[in-house]
């Protein structure tokens, strides 16, 4: 099952500069694990030690912010697209 994943500039060091990569999995968590298997280190930039999505990143599945669709448990199917963007925020 192929899911297209868009990678932001700051994380392209993990993907040899690629803007878009493919991954497999039926949930967002599974896709991130699969990504980490081919692009080692990526997972730690997305998920905290407590196993939650990092507050510094926004993840969208087909344009929906996953914070509103079940976070890491969001279901994915073939042809879905995942977009990762760094949050633009500060104090």
């Amino acid at each position, binding site marked *: 099952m192929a899911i297209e994943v868009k990678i932001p500039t700051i994380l392209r060091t993990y993907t040899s500069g690629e803007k878009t990569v493919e991954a497999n999995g039926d949930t967002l968590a599974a896709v991130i694990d699969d990504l980490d298997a081919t692009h080692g280190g990526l997972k730690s930039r997305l998920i905290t030690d407590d196993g939650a999505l990092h507050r510094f990143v926004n993840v969208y599945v087909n344009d929906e912010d996953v914070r509103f669709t079940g976070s890491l448990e969001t279901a994915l199917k073939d042809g879905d697209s995942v977009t990762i963007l760094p949050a*633009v925020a*500060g*104090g």
Partner: protein
Amino acid sequence: MLSIDRATYDAIVAHARRDHPDEACGIVAGPEGSDRPQRMVAMLNAARSPTFYEFDSSDLLQLYKELDANGEEPVVIYHSHTATEAYPSRTDISYASEPNAHYVLVSTRLPNETEFRSFRIVDATVTEEPVEVVGALPIHTRSPHPKT
């Protein structure tokens, strides 16, 4: 160094003044790899706060889609501090994640004087850089990197 045209500089300061005492935020887009801040996009501070700013999540996605479609990137990411100096806070540093961007800080703490400073923030290291305000950005002498 950040080279920015007078009209964009003035528009960023006006945005910061307009939203005071809340923090204002936005970007100036330019062709990828060009380092030319050409197109200002004022963003809504979803936090509507005097001490925090955050681009709304769906606005952020739309913005990046638009940049991608235009072959642009955020050349400048700006926000205001409304009670403190125009220097990146610890929170600013922890969130900074566009290594190619100039992070512009505007302080509106004084009513008659606006601080406008620019920084690079890479791997949590802050480096201030000079700001050159020009009448108009120089004409390109070479094409920006083609979009891949």
